[in-house]
Structures are given as C-alpha cells and as structure tokens.
C-alpha cells in the first residue's frame, strides 16, 4: 500500500511545486526576503489595525513610491529609498498631527498627495533621463524574483528594529491603543510610543514594498492582522497568528507565481504580488464569514 500512496504524494508535490522550484536561487531569495518582510508586517500590522492606522500604513506605503523612484535616479538600492522616505513621512505625519482621530485622515491624505506628486516627477525623470524603463512597474508592483543578494542584510537591518520596537513596547503600545488617557496616567509617553509605532509601520511597509510592491504593501500590513484579530481574542496570540498568516500567504504566493510560468496567456508568469494579495483577501473574507468570536466584531466602526 505504501507504494501507490508515495507515488500519489509525489505527484501532488510535483503539481504543486513546478520542476526546479527548490533548486532556483531567485526562489530562495524570494522566500527568504519575502518571509522576513511578511513576518515584520504581520507583527507590526497587528498594532496598525488595533490603533486604527490602516490608512496611515497605506499612505506610508504610497509614499515609499517617492523614495523608491528617487533611489532609482540615484542608482542606489530601492530599499534605501523606501525606508528613508517612509521614516521621513512618518515624522511629518506625526508633526502635523495625525494623532487626533478626526482630522488625521485628512492630514495623512495631504502628505500622501504631496509625496505622490513628487513620485510622479521622479518617475518621469527615471523614464526620460535613464534607461530604467521598468522602474515604474518594479517600484509599484514589486520585484520578488529579481531581488539581489545584497538586499538581504539591508532587509534584516531595517526589519529587525521594527520587530524590536513592537516587542519592547508591546504593553505600552497596547495600553495606549486602548486608552490614551489611561496609558498617560500609567506613565506611558503616549506620543513617543505613537511615533515609534508609526516608524515601525514605515519600516514594515518599506520591506513589503520590495516584495509585493509599494502600492500593494498595505495588503501585507493590514490583511493578516485583520484576519488574526477576527480569529483570536488576545493581542499576543493575534500578533503571532498575523505573522504566520502573512508568511504563509507570501510563500504560497511565491509557489503559485513560480507555477504560473506555464499558465496562459503570456507564459511569462503572473505577478507574485497578485497571488499574495488575492490569498490575503480570500482569507479576510473567509474569516469575516466563518471566523469565530474575535475582537473585530465588537470593534467595528
């Protein structure tokens, strides 16, 4: 009986993982960098969702387009641009007051609009003055399979501080997310904690911008966290679940994208970012309909 079963398993594996999947070094890099950025996004994203900062995350992601296109102009790794611009924008948003719940969407949107205006300019220079014609597509929609090996230490250098912020500030952040007044009474420096969280979000989306693309990195930040908060009820467990969901969606996306090189219509592979985003959205809808007694139901606005 073992023979047919083993043959069946190996057939399934062969269908799932196209030939050469495990031997391809771009795939290794994609799995490594994609996994790392998904991990950071899942963990940081839980707080972005809990604090109602989905829009800030989205705006920071869009703004990293500006940084990415500037770094193509300067011929440096786009990650420098993504992260540099993200950190700068987080500072500006904090300065012009996105702490107030009411006016902050406006302030966020204004910063985002101005940044994207600059991005249009930089991309225009990219396409007219140099030969990097693919810059726009690769910045906007990611370039998972063309990541260079040099990016790995850089990605770790940006990702680990973001993780560290959340781990070290876990309790103060949580407290100030639930009630800023209570946190202030307990001696939490609410504004500083908020700024640290925003900076962590900026770093997380800049990593995701590298893998799924700048304008899609919101998916990795918000999606897994929203799914996790629907499925579990404690913040710690939600953070872990979000990280697992994010990494799983990214890796499955890489597998499917690798498989898709044989798919119609172009036989050129479907974009990784499409698979990652579609998987996350499907998970989110499923969690909404079949999920148990998560916190999301009571927290909906």
């Amino acid at each position: 009986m073992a023979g047919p079963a083993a043959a069946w398993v190996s057939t399934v594996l062969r269908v799932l993982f196209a030939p050469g999947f495990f031997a391809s070094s771009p795939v290794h890099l994609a799995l490594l960098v994609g996994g790392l950025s998904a991990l950071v996004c899942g963990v940081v994203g839980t707080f972005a969702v809990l604090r109602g900062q989905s829009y800030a995350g989205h705006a920071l992601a869009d703004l990293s387009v500006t940084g990415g296109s500037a770094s193509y102009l300067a011929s440096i790794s786009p990650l420098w641009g993504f992260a540099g611009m993200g950190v700068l924008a987080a500072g500006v948003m904090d300065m012009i007051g996105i702490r107030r719940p009411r006016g902050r969407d406006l302030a966020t949107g204004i910063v985002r609009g101005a940044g994207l205006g600059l991005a249009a300019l930089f991309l225009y220079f990219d396409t007219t003055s140099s030969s990097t014609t693919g810059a726009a597509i690769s910045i906007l929609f990611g370039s998972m399979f063309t990541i260079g090996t040099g990016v790995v230490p850089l990605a770790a250098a940006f990702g680990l501080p973001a993780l560290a912020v959340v781990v070290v500030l876990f309790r103060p952040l949580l407290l100030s997310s639930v009630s800023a007044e209570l946190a202030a009474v307990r001696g939490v420096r609410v504004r500083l904690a908020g700024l640290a969280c925003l900076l962590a979000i900026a770093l997380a989306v800049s990593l995701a911008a590298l893998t799924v693309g700048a304008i899609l990195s919101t998916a990795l930040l918000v999606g897994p966290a929203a799914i996790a908060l629907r499925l579990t009820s404690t913040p710690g467990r939600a953070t872990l679940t979000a990280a697992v969901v994010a990494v799983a969606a990214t890796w499955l996306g890489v597998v499917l994208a690798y498989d898709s090189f044989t798919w119609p219509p172009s036989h050129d592979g479907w974009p990784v970012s499409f698979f990652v985003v579609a998987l996350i959205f499907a998970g989110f809808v499923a969690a909404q309909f079949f999920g148990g007694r998560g916190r999301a139901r009571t927290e909906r606005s």
Partner: protein
Amino acid sequence: MFLPFMINAWVAATMVAVIAGVVGFFVVLRGGAFVADAVPQGAFTGAAGASLLGINTLFGLGVFALVGALGIGWLSRRARRDVATALVLVLLLGLGALFLSFTTEYASELFALLFGDVLGVSRGDILPIAVLGVVCVVAVAVLYRPLLLSSVAPESSAAKGVRNTWMEVAFLVIVAIATSMTLPVVGALLIFSLMIGPPAAARSLTASPLAAIGLSVVLALATVWAAIALSYETDWPVGVFVGIGGAVCYAGGRVVASLRQPSARVSASQ
C-alpha cells in the same frame, strides 16, 4: 499654451476641478478620505482591464469604480471600515498588476493612468466627462440636504427619517462617478489630492456649507489651471503640480485659519 490641441485639456480640467471641488466637500465632511483615495485606485484596474480587452477605458473605469465603492460599503458592515477599504483597494490594485503583466507595451499608458495625462484628452473624451459631471452635480443637488444632515449628525438625520445606510451608498456611488470622469485627466494616484486639499482648505476658512463648496470649487480650479500651465511650461507630468498644489491649499487654509482665530477655528474644522 492656448493652442487648439490644448483647448480640450483646459475644458476637461475645468470640469474635473468643479466636480472634485463639489464632491470633495462631502468627502471631507464625512471623513471619507480613505474611501476617496481607494476608489480611484480600484478604478485604475478597470482601465487596465478594459485596455487589455480592447474596450472603452471609461467603461472599465466606471464598472470598477462602482464595484470598488459598493464592495467597500458592503464589507464595512461586517468589518472595520478602514480595514475593509484597505483590503478592497489592494485586491483591485493586485488585479491591476495582473492585467498589466498580460500586456507588454503598456508602460506609458500605465504612467498616464496613475499620474494623469491631461494633454492626452481628445475631443471625444469631452462629452462623456461632461455627461458624468452633470450626473454628479445633479445627484449632489438632489441629495444635498439629507447628505449634509447624515454627514454632520447621523443620529438626528436618522430621527428625521433619512436612511443613513442609503446615504452612504449614494455617497460612494457619487464618488465612483466623479472618479471615473476625473481619473484619465489627473491620474488614479492624485485625484484624491484634488478632492481633499481644496475642500479641506475651504472648510477651515468658512463654516457655511454653500460658501465652503463655492470656495472649494474656486481653489480646485486655481490648482488645476496652475498645474496645466506649469506642466505646459516645464513639460513635467501634470500630477506633480496637482499633488503639491493640493497640499499647498491645505497648508494655506490651516495657516490662515490659525492666524484668524487661533483656537475656535481649529476645533471647528476638526
């Protein structure tokens, strides 16, 4: 700058600015910044898909703007609104990336859709933009009072028999229509600057709704006209100036408001 081929650009941009100014007022009033940001980006996917299938871009824009807007409305009854908005947005953008990957000679069109191509407006584009614009203005005029009431005081509007859920749907549909007509001109990523910057500035300068709508239209017109003129002079994309102009409006509005009445105005505008 006023050569024959520029006339279409001026006409289209003027209509776009009026609509953005009017619709944007309600976007700001309802705190719907994120939705107004998400719908155009979803609509971008429709344009990419339509161009893939070889059908009219405006049709694709309209369908996806509506699907996006109603999808957000439907999902946000079940989940947090900002999360639902973010996820519908990225799903549509992800589909857009997929559509784009099916075609190879699309880079310049992509750029035009995302960042606007006002000089590419042809005579044939003017009529659909005008029709959609009129639909938008009529819808806002008809729904003016209930929409205003449900935006400012949802509880009391419910008491007066306004169905807030339907108002939300109507608002999303209006945003979707406004998006379809403005997207080809100023681009998916920057429509939103035009819909937010001028109205936010107008809101911080005057408390009366009608005056604010008027002021917001004037500021939007000024932004767009300046953007076209500068774009013509520098040959840079028009979106650059629209994005920065929106931010300048907002900053100017806040500065003037804080100079005039330091505390009262700020709290009134929030």
